Each structure stands twice: as C-alpha cells, then as structure tokens.
C-alpha cells in the first residue's frame, strides 16, 4: 500500500485544489471582515485590505446581540446533536439487524418525510407545538431539530451497522454476552465513525438552521445566530457586508473546532483489531 512519489505528488496537488475550492470562503470572510465599506466595492478586489479596520467586529457585536445568540445556538445545537444520536442509535441498530414490517415502514417514512416540501409542513407543525406550549421555547426548537435530523441519522447509522460484520456480534453472543452487552462492548466502538458523522450532521444543521428558528422563537432573548446574522441583510438582498462577514466568520469557527476535535474519531478504525482479536 505504499504510494509512489509521483502518486504522492499528485495526491497533494489534488488535495490543494480541493482545499482552495472548499476553503476559500474562510479567507474571503477574513479579508472582508477587516475591510472598510469603500473597499468592498472595488472593481479589482484585493485580498489584503489597504486600511484594515475593526469597525465591522464592533458593529457586529454592538448592533445585534451576537454573543447571546451564539450561546443560544450552542445550547440548541449541542442538545439536538446529543439527543439525535441517543435516540437514533438504538433504532438504527434495530432497523439494520432485524427485518420487521415496522422497520420497512420506518425507513420508507424516513425518505418520504425528507421528500415532501417542508414549507408545507411548517404551519401544521407550528400549530402542534403551540398546543403543547412549546412555541417560543428552545425545547420546542430542539424537538423540531431532532425530528428533522433523525431521518438522516437513522438512514446513515443503519448503513454503518450493516457494515459491521455480523460474525463479531455472534461471536460475542456465543461467549454469553447479552444483547445489551454486545451493543455496548462490540457495536458501539465500531460505530464511532458513524456516530461522529451523525452528531456532526445534527450539530451543524441545527447550528445553521434558519427557518424554524425564525418562526418558532419570538422573544429577542431566544434568537439563534442565523436569525441574528440575517438582520445585516436589508432590502433587495443588499447586505451590510462588513458586519455580516465578521459575524459569519465567528459563527463558522465553532463548527470547525467541534469537528477538529472529532475528526480523529472518524477513522479510528478499530475494526481491524476487533476482527483479529
């Protein structure tokens, strides 16, 4: 499995192209967030501002309550991510390992619920949450996010469960382990990469979700980051680009940090060792 030098060079080249394509907005936001208004409309935009300024950061924090919005978002997103995984993991295991009519129905439902135009679901959803007094609460929003992330979580996790050789579990079962023990000792560690991918998905989609946060939360104290950032956009899509870029850059970082900690787990291939052992 040793790659030749040429192959390595090509790999680094390809990786560099990918990084530019996917990562350039970070540089752009960084550059824009330090530009004074005049430099945003130059016909030949420059990377490094001529007269860098901190005004955009000051504006972002003084005019809208970004700090509180960030805390709100953090609370909502973390709760959604944890709850989604907790709820989805056992269900995904059941769906992947046992064929039941219920399982087929559930998977079908998962797809259907993602397919139907969600704009048409908003109003009924709103009415239900209103009846149980969860409108204008973070708990209501979290509930919506969990339900929203569940289809992806279930669908993905059951794919990962299927990837785990059944022999492993059977071997453990033969050794006298109960199903719960099998789950905990054998399945859970092997599922770590899938769980990372899923919780990341749940976290980021909650972190960046706009529409439900907009319609479900009325009190200014509860507003999340995306809703708060949108206030820098005005009529006809004209934006106050400086504060928006500053705020957006800061809003991007937590997800990246979250992932930086998790990414090692993504390929913690303990599978090989497990099969041998």
């Amino acid at each position: 499995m040793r790659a030749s030098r040429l192959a390595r060079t090509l790999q680094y080249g390809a990786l560099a192209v990918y990084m530019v394509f996917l990562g350039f907005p970070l540089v752009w936001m960084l550059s824009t967030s330090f530009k004074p208004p005049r430099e945003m409309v130059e016909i030949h935009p420059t990377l490094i501002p001529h007269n860098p300024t901190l005004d955009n950061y000051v504006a972002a924090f003084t005019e809208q309550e970004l700090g509180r919005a960030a805390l709100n978002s953090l609370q909502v997103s973390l709760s959604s991510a944890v709850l989604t995984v907790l709820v989805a993991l056992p269900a995904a295991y059941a769906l992947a390992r046992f064929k039941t009519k219920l399982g087929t129905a559930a998977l079908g439902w998962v797809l259907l619920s993602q397919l139907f135009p969600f704009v048409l679901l908003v109003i009924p959803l709103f009415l239900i949450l209103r009846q149980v007094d969860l409108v204008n609460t973070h708990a209501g929003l979290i509930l919506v996010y969990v339900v929203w992330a569940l289809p992806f979580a279930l669908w993905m996790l059951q794919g990962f469960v299927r990837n785990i050789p059944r022999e492993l579990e059977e071997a453990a079962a033969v050794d006298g382990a109960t199903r719960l023990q099998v789950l905990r000792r054998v399945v859970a560690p092997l599922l770590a990469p899938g769980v990372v991918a899923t919780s990341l998905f749940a976290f980021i989609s909650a972190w960046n979700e706009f529409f439900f946060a907009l319609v479900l939360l009325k009190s200014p104290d509860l507003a999340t980051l995306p809703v708060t950032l949108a206030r820098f956009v005005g009529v006809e899509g004209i934006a106050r680009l400086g504060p928006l870029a500053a705020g957006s850059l800061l809003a991007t970082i937590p997800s990246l940090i979250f992932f930086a900690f998790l990414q090692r787990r993504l390929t913690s291939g303990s599978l090989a060792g497990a099969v041998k052992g």
Partner: protein
Amino acid sequence: MLRKLVAVSAALLIGLSGCGSGDDDDSSSSEGPVKLRFLSLAWQKESLTANRELVDKWNAEHPDIQVEYVQGDWNSVHDQLLTSFEGGDAPDIFQYESAAIGEFAKQGYLADLSSLVSSDLKGEISDGIWKTVTFDGKVAGVPFLLESQVVLANKKLLDAAGITVPAAGQSWTWDEFQANAQKLTKSGTYGVAWALKSPTNRVMNLSLNFDGKFFYTDGSKTEVKVGDAEKEIPRRIHDMIYVTKSASPDAVGMGGTDPLPGFFAGKYAMLPGGVFLRQQMVEQAPAGFEWVTLPPIKGLSANQAANPQTLSISEDSKGKKQAMQFVEYFLNPANMARLAQGDWLVPTGKKAGEELITSTGGKQGWDVAVASAGDLTIAPFQTVDGYPEWKTKYATPALQQYFANKITLDQLGTQLVDGGKQVLR
C-alpha cells in the same frame, strides 16, 4: 462513552427547562399594562438606533402600554408573517410595504385602520399614497417611507461631456436622458447601467411616465393590455442596450447595488436607482469621487408608482387602539423625518419632508429626493389580485428574455397578455 452521553444530555435537558422558556406574553390578566409586540425591519445603523430609541422613549413615557421591540429582516419577513398569521401568533404592529400587505389585508389578517388614524396623520399624507394602502375600502397600513427612482451620476464624467446637472424639479425627459447617455458613452464607459435582475417592478413603476397601466379593469373583469404606452419604457431601455449601445448589457442581470463597483470605477456614468443608493455613495464612494443625484426622468409626466413602507396592525391584536397610539407617536413629523433620514428614504408626511430639508440643508441629494415625493402615486397593478403571481411566473421571465435580446417587443407583449389570461381568471 454511552454513559457520558446520557449524563451530558441529562444536564442539558435540566438546563433547558430552567432557562429555555421565554414565554412571558401571558397578558390575559386584565390588570397590568397592555403589551404589544412591534416587528421592525430596520437594518441600517442609524435607523436601528432611531427605532430602538423611539421605542425606549415610548415605553418610559407610557407605563400602561409597553412595546416590545422585535427585530425582523426583509428577506424572511413574508414567511415569518404568513406563518405567524396562520398560527395565530402575529406581532401586534409590524413594518412592511404596500405591495405585500394587500394580500394579507384581503386574507383578513390586518386591522382596518380607517377609523383609527387621527385626522392629523391622515392630512399629512397625500391621497395618492393613502390609496396604495387601501384595499376594498379598508386601510391596511400607515405609509411612512417612500423610495422614488432617481438617477445617480458621476459628476466628473458629466462635466467632461459638457452636460449640466439639472436642479431639483427640472427633470430631463427620456429623450434628453437617452441623448446624454449617448454622449457619455465612449470606450470603456457606458452611459448607463440598468440593473434589471428584478425587472418587473422597475418597468411597472417607470411606465407611469408614459401612462402605461398594464392592468385595465372593466367592471369586475381585469385584464392585461400591452399597447404603445406600455411598450415605451421596455423599448427605450432595450434600445439603449442593444441599438445605441449606451447601456451595459452586463448590468442587466444585476441587482440594485451590484453596478456600484463599475460606477465608482467610471465604467458606468449614470446609475438609475432608488434614492437609498445615496447612502452607498456616502459610505462607499472612493475618495475624490463626485456624485450627484439627478431628478427622476419624465415622459408625459414624472409620475412613478409608489410602494411605501408601512406600519400595520394585526386583526388579532388585543390592543388595536393602543397600537395605533404607538404608531401615531412613532410617525409624528419629527420621528418620521428621523426614520427617513436613517434609511435614506423619502418621508410620506409633508411636515416631515420640510423638516428633513431644513435639517440636511438639502445636501446629499435630499432636495431632489424630497421633491420627488410629489410624483409618487398609485398605479393600477398595485391593487390587482394575483399581481405577485403574474409578476413571478410570467412578467419577470418575459422581461428578462426581452432585455437579454432573446425575444421581440411584440413577443414580450404577447407573453405578458397571455400570462394575464392565465392568472386573472
């Protein structure tokens, strides 16, 4: 690992139940102050400050009518309002625009303000403007900020071409405007940038110059007609782009402020657009760049369709009278002038306009802006049921095709009329 997750989530849940709920609007108890929610769409720094200060001041002076300031944004306000109306949870007072509140009014969500508005406020605003917020005889909102279409120009390029700047009220005719655009066009510079990403409202507004109505109502039946009057504006703009080549074809797909880099770099000499563009001039024009505001262009008249920003009150609000008191206060001449200045728009109130001229000395184009208010009036399309649908489904694609030189003027006319038949059944 699993155990850790459970512990974390339990902790989070406990935290949630403690501080997650902000539902404090249970004001059903008859005692205590009336609580009102006010959804504002302010987004410019000055206007944000003005909005918040006015609300704070009101709350300090009126302990029995407390207004909660809620910030919205223009992009999502429609979805937000529609959802909250349907869910029975709408703000008591909200800011929006006449073009959009008509639908809400017809759907029964807005309080009729005709009996609530004081005669003072009524008298401040012209009848033509009141008509833009009156649907089926009901007043759906108080109009307070106007955006007229003016022309911003690069002063140095005008001087170089020997073109004098017309004073406020001394509008160029379309012929003069087109001739001057021609004079300003040379290699590397177009006379004009027409930003036509959303062409329909632009064309509808300006078509009043030539009395182009598009919608004709006979009894209960409304239909779209495209005659010579309606064809004037599209034809003139199209000719500037493709016949005399005095307008840039690249600008056609641009939104309101997209031409600014080219304008500041001298690529476009004139930029027709809303009066709010003056703010971008002040904030973003490079050092040494001189700009002027030219009065609206005129055809048979300088009339334009008015689409004022409005303050409306929900039908479901429990304190309509109190809400109206707040609106009256919020829009008194001094406050209205301040709000207009913060958003670089024209106030609907006469006194507010005068105050604005005094406080700014008419500089930065305020003379032209305030004077242009007199040309703003109602256009037929503004009260037509189904206009939004006609606009999005038929008019916008057809106009985009015409301005991209893909179809002829006659084909444009046919498409607009046929679209009308589909929508106005």
